[in-house]
């Protein structure tokens, strides 16, 4: 089973009713075992039924027998829905959810799911949390199946190319798979340490896959002298928290001014830095790692830009991700470091900026205009976004123009670190100001709202997640910022201050396009890759 922690508000009903499978951390953060033992079945069913926000998804094999649903019958003229061929490239959360949605919408044609990892779709958030603390085994994170998707799975084989004219996906083993509609859900991979020889040292980890997580867990179990975490975004901060929980000395090297400052700004970043230091983390801001040094192929030391050298035997590289688009580079689609651009209905753009009708994209790899946030093209690397965007893409793939949905989901994410539950809605990084609206920073129980030019664009809660629905509504209504009314639990200082986000650049700004042809019918745009530009 899996818990949609974006929905979860920490009511703890599951932890009461099935305490072996669900654990509360603090007032409202939840850790769960995705594969509880068979003797827990009834308790887990009780937990799933009791969830006040229905965030718990149990595999269909464990659900009570349901009366058969009325079969959806495709309209006579709806050939695609009845016997079209759909290919999904990317067999993780978004790919699985899209496949389930296609079948739920009555798609009865052939469905092929292609993934470069050999495993069935699994859940990644636990890999940097309960897998590292030992509550859950990395192999137990397989995502539950909510319905029979009757797909042809091609796992352990990467897609290497796309031929749009012939509508074929080319695979690493030379196979070609034909499609009528294609969905790209290839996601993101961990950004490796940039020096290959140093990245190859034994003890240097990234954390994105089950294999990464299992290797790191094994190393942490062996009580390393010190762990170096490089980068303090969410993954880096969560890893630092895990080390503290396991009693392992940990240094965090952060090139910027504070942890989490890219996602939540400098004000929240300083709070986060304070919490890290209270827990004994050796946090070094404005500090880069100059080199990772080894002996006999094993990591031994790290030299930092502050002039110090640390003895470390494990380094976790948490420098964000790289979007998996290389296989699409010569496809003619609008791909680059920004991902694959698409419209609000998840239809991919060509390099020339035309919208395609048969290639769709969802999940971390998609970059989409966000009407609620100034129509900016944003990529939302959030669990909840992967689910909702996949569902919208799947629906649109088999629907006529007039039935299509826009993906207008409110971005939302969560992080659990140092016993604190951090949740956010909206797009804080576009904000210019932040104001504490409820509670107090000192008690570590507060909500803050983000404003941009006088309207609410985001919010973050620390151990106060039950209030976030209110802020989501404010964002959806483009409500004024700062909030012009009294509220319960007012903060000691409600005055807005600068949100202190690093300067943002649209990654597409660096794109180089060559345009050829003279007649409007002949005009073509081609993206030039940096490697080929030289």
């Amino acid at each position, binding site marked *: 089973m899996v818990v949609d922690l974006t929905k979860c508000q920490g009511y703890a009903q599951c932890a009461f009713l099935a305490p072996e499978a669900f654990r509360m951390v603090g007032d409202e953060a939840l850790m769960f075992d995705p594969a509880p033992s068979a003797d827990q079945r009834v308790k887990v069913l009780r937990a799933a039924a009791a969830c006040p926000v*229905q965030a718990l998804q149990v595999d269909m094999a464990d659900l009570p027998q349901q009366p058969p649903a009325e079969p959806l019958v495709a309209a006579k003229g709806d050939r695609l829905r009845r016997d079209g061929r759909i290919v999904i490239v990317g067999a993780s959360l978004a790919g699985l959810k899209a496949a389930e949605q296609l079948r739920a919408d009555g798609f009865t044609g052939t469905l092929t799911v292609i993934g470069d990892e050999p495993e069935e779709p699994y859940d990644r958030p636990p890999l940097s949390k309960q897998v590292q603390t030992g509550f859950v085994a990395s192999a137990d994170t397989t995502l539950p199946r909510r319905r029979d998707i009757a797909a042809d799975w091609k796992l352990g084989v990467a897609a290497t190319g796309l031929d749009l004219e012939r509508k074929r996906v080319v695979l690493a083993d030379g196979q070609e798979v034909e499609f009528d509609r294609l969905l790209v859900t290839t996601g993101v991979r961990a950004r490796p340490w940039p020096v290959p020889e140093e990245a190859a040292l034994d003890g240097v980890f990234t954390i994105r896959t089950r294999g990464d997580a299992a290797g790191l867990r094994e190393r942490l179990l062996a009580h390393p002298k010190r762990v170096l975490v490089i980068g303090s975004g969410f993954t880096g901060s969560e890893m630092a928290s895990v080390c503290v929980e396991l009693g392992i000395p940990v240094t965090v090297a952060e090139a910027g001014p504070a942890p989490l400052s890219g996602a939540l700004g400098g004000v929240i970043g300083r709070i986060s830095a304070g919490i890290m230091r209270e827990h004994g983390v050796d946090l070094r801001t404005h500090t880069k790692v100059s080199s990772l040094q080894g002996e006999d192929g094993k990591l031994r030391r790290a030299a930092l830009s502050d002039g110090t050298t640390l003895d470390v035997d494990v380094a976790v590289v948490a420098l964000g991700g790289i979007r998996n688009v290389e296989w699409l580079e010569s496809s003619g689609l609008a791909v680059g470091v920004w991902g694959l651009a698409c419209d609000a209905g998840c239809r991919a753009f060509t390099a020339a900026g035309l919208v395609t009708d048969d290639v769709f994209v969802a999940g971390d790899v998609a970059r989409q205009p966000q009407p609620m946030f100034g129509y900016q093209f944003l990529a939302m690397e959030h669990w909840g976004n992967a689910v909702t965007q996949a569902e919208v893409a799947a629906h649109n793939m088999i629907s006529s123009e007039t039935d299509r949905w826009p993906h207008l989901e409110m971005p939302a994410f969560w992080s659990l670190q140092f016993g604190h539950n951090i949740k956010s809605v909206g797009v804080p990084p576009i904000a210019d100001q932040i104001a504490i609206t409820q509670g107090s920073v000192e008690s570590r129980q507060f909500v803050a709202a983000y404003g941009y030019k006088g309207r609410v664009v985001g919010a973050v809660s620390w151990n106060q997640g039950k*209030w976030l629905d209110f802020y989501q509504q404010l964002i959806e209504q483009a409500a004024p910022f700062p909030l012009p009314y009294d509220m319960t639990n007012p903060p000691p200082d409600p005055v807005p201050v600068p949100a202190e986000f690093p300067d943002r650049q649209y990654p597409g700004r660096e794109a180089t396009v060559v345009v050829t042809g003279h007649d409007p019918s002949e005009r073509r745009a081609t993206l030039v890759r940096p490697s080929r530009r030289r």
Partner: protein
Amino acid sequence: MTEPSVFDEIVDFHNRANPWPLYDKLRTQPVWQEADGTFVVSTFREIYALFHDPRISSDAANLLPEFAHKAGPLSDGGGALPPSFIRTDAPRHDTLRRIAMRQFGPPHRPDRIDKLVPALEAIVTRLVDGLVGKDQCDLVDDVAYPFPVAVICELLGVPEEDEPRFSAWVDPIVNSAGQPTPESKEQAKEAFQQLGMYMFQLAQRRKADPGDDMLSGYVTDDGPDGQLEGGDLFATLILLLIAGHETTVNLIANGWLTLLRHPEALQRLRTEPDFSIRMVEELLRYEPSVHFVPNRIAVADIEIGGTTIRKGHPVVLVLASGNRDGECIPHADRFDPDRADNVHLAFGNGVHYCFGAPLARLEAQLALTQLAKRLQNPRLLADPPPYRPSPVLRGPIHLPVAYDGVLPA
């Protein structure tokens, strides 16, 4: 005399047995302003939104002076004790609730309720055994009431033999919550004093000779938030004692009534394993124990549902109406135990979400399953049955049932 409002009719005892058509009428307008200045909220989305709206307070101190008399005595201590945590706002609410939770559930006592399941089974078995040798019973007096009372006594550490004493104090408190009058409020205040005194003596005994019960925990354990001091301890204990059984009585009695009105569901409960789990969830939606949350206050003007709720005015959230809102819930008037993604308002929502919800669910699942499996050919002797006076805690006061026999457990 002005025409009674829809809400007046709902509160009117004559409509207790079947308020549902009135709730349909109420939902034609999401928010109503009553003649006395109270705002009544009827629709699912608006109720849900207000549960998460930080402009809604639970602290009676935020009422304008002209509404001060509206503060119900169920949980405000009746003037004898400080308000319990359900009548407070953060940060005080969060602290009091966290201390109370420390002896009840996760994260500090994660398996307290799970470990209680065998004891719950044993109590139900004993009560249903008591129906052997008769051909009819009052399901309220014989099962629905004594079961949760026995459970809350065991949990809190209140001797069960004291039940007649505290029920004599609880009744006036519950009665005055529904329709407060000067006399009923005076009786409630007196009852709070007596109950507080009783709890004080019990606390002294547990302090000297602690057991594994919650009361012993409250007087001996000292967590990061400290202990409940003085009046806060007694207010919390009384809240848990009252809320711990007054609502579950209704859930079980309403549940049994609903099952006898839906024989196919009763039959499935006998034969399908785990059927009780989703059935009770649907029951909570369809026949909730608490029909409305009467004690919220706006601390700012709130524009919602086409109306502006005024600062300082009382706000009533009609949970039972929201649970039948066809705009958000498909075929809302049908009792459908197979309902998927059953999100309902029976336990409220937001930070004041029902403290004892997991216990109530288990109690209803276990009691109704055992009744279904053991009572042979059960029949209602009165439909509708007679109801308790309260429009808030709504349920039968008696539920006479005939049966042919009782199977062994």
